């Protein structure tokens, strides 16, 4: 019972914040709402028992990606009080597309029979921390992706620095 209330509360916050984020006329406010939406998602993760994922959701998504976004917003000239319409002329098609896709997924989900596995799987009281499982998996079954991630990060770092520093040289 209490879980359901909490679920709806978090889901409500998430969706509300996501809506505001998409509709807000001010890009900075959008970023703040995005942070709120991500926080809601993190809470949902925690509800599912994935505390580690919730933690890194906060750490990486809010603490890093959103901060990076806000940095970029700050580094571009965004004038306070200047409410620019952030929405282009594609509103109607967008609504249709998004509604259609959402309905499609929801229909599919509702029609699907998830089988017997669900009933026995999550005994909600036994939400154990699975950081150790993740670690073990990373070092055994997922060791190749694990190493590839570092290459990906290196590539991103080098790429971004190259873009930025090319820009710097162009300035001179």
């Amino acid at each position, binding site marked *: 019972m209490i879980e359901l209330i909490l679920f709806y509360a978090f889901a409500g916050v998430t969706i509300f914040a996501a809506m505001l984020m998409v509709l807000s006329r001010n890009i900075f406010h959008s970023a703040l709402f995005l942070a709120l939406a991500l926080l809601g998602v993190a809470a949902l993760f925690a509800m599912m028992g994935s505390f580690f994922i919730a933690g890194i959701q906060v750490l990486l998504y809010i603490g*890093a990606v959103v*901060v*990076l976004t806000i940095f970029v917003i*700050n580094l571009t000239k965004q004038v306070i009080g200047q409410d620019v319409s952030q929405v282009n002329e594609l509103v109607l098609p967008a609504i249709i597309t998004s509604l259609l896709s959402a309905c499609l997924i929801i229909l599919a989900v509702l029609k699907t029979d998830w089988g017997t596995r669900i009933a026995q799987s999550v005994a909600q009281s036994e939400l154990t921390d699975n950081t150790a499982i993740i*670690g073990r998996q990373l070092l055994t079954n997922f*060791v190749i992706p694990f190493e590839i991630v570092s290459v990906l*990060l*290196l590539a991103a*770092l080098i790429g971004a620095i190259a873009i*930025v520093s090319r820009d710097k040289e162009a300035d001179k």
Partner: protein
Amino acid sequence: MAYGTLLVFIGFAVVFVVGGVVVNYLLMPYKPSVAKYTTYECGIDPIGNAQIRYSMRFYVFALMYVVFAVEAVFLLPWAVVYRRMTGLMPLIEVLIFIFILVLGLAFAWKKGELKWD
């Protein structure tokens, strides 16, 4: 239970801040004037807009932060299971992982991105 406490905590923090400001608003003397609500800039009229375009350097540091934060996050589960795993494989795998990222740091260092100019 534990995360419930977190919720209560956040609720408390919100009540604390909002309550403080509300009490402040109830008690404060209020005397508006035009000059009071102007932006402070050492006592003179602000020159130009405050929304300035600031140094690109900050972006470099922020992006490096993102990359290294992701790295640290990958190391966390490793650190948790490290003692419980036998063999040298975990160590070697992680050393490779760290090495590749140190390359990134070295690249940035070499490129002079860590230096401010």
